[in-house]
């Protein structure tokens, strides 16, 4: 499943549990409010973002058609919104026939329960810009990029039919190369944990999947040279008041796969991390790629400090990825039996 497929899940399978008081306003707390609060700082004077945070929510990335132009719901509307989302997303439904049921995979409690809750500010989409809450229209694609996109779609189709040609038909997450650790960070069905570490001159973010760490130097050094490309890009950060601003460039792509089919040469991300209170951090990202979208777009996702009794655990992946063989030997067995689809 490519990043587009992942985004589809992320759109509808994210959750925030309101473990603390509800925020009454639609907009994130203003900068003025943040400055008023005594934001904690590290001993060396940087705003303190350290700890383990969870970003799960059911609020979709894009505003659904049914809500019209509303960007924020009333308390009453929010109850219904959350209930409907929960109904769609829960794995403990058995209706819809076997074709639908098999994809629910297993019992709901294997998933992150917080993904069934909308954000505390009752927004109808994680996207805050453009104002319609939807990804902007696509830019025209070159024939070369269109060909790459079609090849990727064909590989996905073979995979979904249970007839992949080779491991190259699998998505990067299925191959255990990258998953939620590739920025921008989007909520997903489980393991929505991010452990933030800090030291003088650095912020380092360790997402649970797939066990990697993103180092963000704060000393103003230039990005890596343009011939160095990384799956997680190359990040540089600085403080803007209490907000950590991170610019990420130098992305790579293998087999034509990138975030939502963007062009790695021109794709860039700007993220903003602001600690709002003891248990909440506002994560906001703006993505731009003139070769993919007609304009940049921005999403805001609240992160919540996890219960201290919880931990982030190791997510090894490639080491025990039996399914790589299951998918392939299964396909060969079915081909032998003459099963086309």
């Amino acid at each position: 499943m490519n990043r587009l497929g992942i985004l589809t899940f992320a759109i509808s399978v994210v959750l925030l549990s309101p473990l603390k008081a509800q925020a009454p306003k639609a907009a994130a707390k203003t900068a003025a409010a943040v400055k008023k609060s005594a934001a904690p700082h590290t001993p060396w004077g940087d705003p303190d973002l350290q700890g383990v945070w969870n970003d799960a929510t059911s609020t979709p990335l894009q505003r659904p058609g049914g809500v019209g132009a509303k960007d924020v719901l009333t308390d009453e509307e929010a109850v219904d919104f959350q209930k409907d989302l929960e109904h769609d997303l829960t794995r403990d439904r058995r209706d819809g026939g076997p074709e639908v049921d098999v994809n629910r995979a297993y019992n709901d409690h294997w998933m992150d329960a917080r993904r069934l809750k909308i954000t505390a500010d009752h927004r109808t989409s994680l996207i805050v810009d453009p104002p319609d809450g939807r990804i902007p229209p696509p830019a025209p694609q070159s024939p070369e990029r269109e060909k790459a996109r079609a090849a990727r779609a064909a590989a996905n189709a073979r995979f979904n039919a249970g007839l992949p040609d080779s491991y190259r038909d699998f998505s990067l997450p299925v191959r255990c190369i990258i998953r939620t650790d590739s920025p921008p960070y989007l909520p997903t069905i489980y393991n929505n944990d991010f452990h933030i570490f800090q030291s003088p001159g650095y912020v380092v973010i360790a997402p649970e999947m797939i066990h990697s760490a993103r180092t963000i130097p704060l000393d103003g050094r230039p990005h890596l040279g343009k011939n160095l490309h990384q799956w997680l890009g190359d990040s540089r950060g600085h403080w803007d008041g209490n907000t950590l601003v991170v610019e990420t460039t130098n992305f790579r792509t293998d087999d034509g796969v990138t975030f939502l089919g963007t062009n790695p040469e021109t794709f860039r991300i700007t993220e903003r991390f602001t600690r709002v209170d003891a248990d909440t951090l506002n994560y906001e990202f703006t993505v731009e790629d003139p070769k993919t979208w007609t304009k940049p777009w921005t999403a805001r996702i609240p992160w919540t400090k996890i219960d201290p009794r919880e931990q982030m655990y190791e997510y090894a992946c490639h080491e025990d990825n039996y399914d790589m063989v299951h998918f392939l030997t299964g396909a060969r067995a079915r081909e032998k039996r003459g099963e086309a689809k």
Partner: protein
Amino acid sequence: MADGHPDLNGIWQALVTANLDLQDHEAQPGPHPELMGAYGAGAAGQSIVEGGEIPYRAEALAKKKQNFEKRMTVDVSSDKKWHDLGDPELKCYMPGVPRATYMPFPFRIVQGSSPYILIAYEFTSATRIVRMNWKGEAPTPSWMGWSRGRWEADTLVVDVTGQREESWLDRAGDFHSEDLHVVERYTPVSPYHLMYEATIEDPKVYTRPWKISFPLYRRLEKNLQLLEFKCVPFTEQMLFGRFGKEATK
């Protein structure tokens, strides 16, 4: 650091060849020298084991030899035998502790003002979190183990348990059981060196605990950062190529 402990922040790297073999080893051709010549050949190295030799139980030594003979053999066709053959490093599996420390790649220590220290390794972007002054045990084994740290004067002492039994200690087939218990000591000896020691204990495999030690050097290049060594794509053809459509025609 503000709490009075030494500042271990930075990028560190070992210069020993222990990842090839913890014990004394001569220079050796690599796999397939008929193709690779001097590429992939291994340098000679002196043992980093105190006393020179790893004190294996007799039956365990036989398994080490078997590991070494099959270090380049892989066969993942059966789930039950998925881990039976081949050096985990060959397959780009996370190396565990202490092997991650002496792999020929840099790693970064991130020490802040929280109860956790992060160690991020360039090899396969592996990470481990050292939980400071922590009581709880590992809920299940993991590839990089369950690390609990504490300070003893200027030494960071890290107690590592709960490692997956499938990891190896080097390419020579040195191995352990799931009862492996490692105690690491990171001691600054200058602004540019840490002295690293690890005591390794596993009564199922060794007749007594044994110790390794070597310096860790601070990488000093301007603007140095860990780059990505995501080696999974380098192993997929080897592991999964035989199950593809082309291969089975």
